[in-house]
């Protein structure tokens, strides 16, 4: 039994949506998949590369912490994939 049964939890979803909105407002368009205290960013190809900027990364981490996420990771999508769609 996985611990990640909270993926669909309403409060978790709300915090993920808020984080996505905040990141998008900062110039990082994305969706956020919550997995307990881990937030996984789903981004279009090219957006992940912007996170190579350390300042941007730190700002994103701070926004994640504001929403109660202890961990933030960006999904590395295969070339050509629409990363903003939920994965199978």
């Amino acid at each position, binding site marked *: 039994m*996985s*611990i990640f049964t909270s993926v669909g939890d309403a409060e978790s979803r709300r915090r993920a949506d808020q984080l996505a909105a905040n990141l998008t407002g900062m110039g990082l368009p994305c969706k956020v998949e919550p997995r*307990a205290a881990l937030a996984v960013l789903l981004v279009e190809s090219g957006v992940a*590369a912007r996170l190579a900027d350390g300042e941007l*990364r730190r700002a994103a981490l701070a926004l994640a912490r504001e929403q109660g996420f*202890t961990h933030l*990771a*960006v999904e590395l999508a295969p070339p050509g994939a629409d990363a903003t769609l939920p*994965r199978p």
Partner: protein
Amino acid sequence: MSRIVDIDNAERAAEKEEALAAWLRACGRVAIGFSGGVDSAYLAVVARRTLGGENVLAIIGRSASYPAEQWAAARRVADAFDVTVLELDTDEMNDPRYAANPSNRCYFCKSELWGKVVPEATQRGFGTVVDGTNADDVGGHRPGMQAANEHAVASPLAELGFSKSEIRERSRALGLPTWQQPASPCLSSRLPYGTSVTPERLHLVEQAERAVRALGVTGDLRVRYHDDVARVELAPAELTTWLEPRRAESLRAAVVSAGFPRVALDLRGFRSGSLNVLHGVTTA
């Protein structure tokens, strides 16, 4: 300034090593729980130099949670420094308390380990069994230390106040290849608490880390298992490099080739005990 600090560290470490040699001489014969990591390798080599080959036995506990590459590294160190090794199979995977992966999982693993190592060492005439716990380890979330205490396993590096940096300093001075080796806890540490530990999941994580290493990553690395997602933690200084699109794609492809459907790169980078933070066992 940093040079002065380094000299102080080196002198302090050398003094502690003299105290360690005296501690070991008082024991006469020692068996060491040996993983081939930085700490136990250093302890084994100092013991070998101090007591002679016939009075030191390094015991490796082998199971699916012990990475094959770590085992190979342990054997290389032992061979290079003429340390006698005994290998014992441990069976923690078949203990449902361990397999359920509670936050004190390490207690059940170490109970199994020391429950086999201590009697074997005693039977072979080694009255003292030691481990490589160091002073930096004390006070963290380390339920395995309770099992060591219950089996009367001594931790001379912790007892004598060796920090990790001092152990690395003395390892470098003694020519151990482990001196700058990243920490290498068991593979089960890649699974979040509550996610059951199975040989298949450990194999998946091990294969993924091997694939990433093959790309040239030599520093800290963890592939954390989150069901269908592999969350890769690299040294923070490496993140800029691996977020570059072509590098990111090679990283993704490597982890996918190991069997994970999806790959995510942690944006804070490697942190020891990351999953303890995730579950609120420790703070960030």
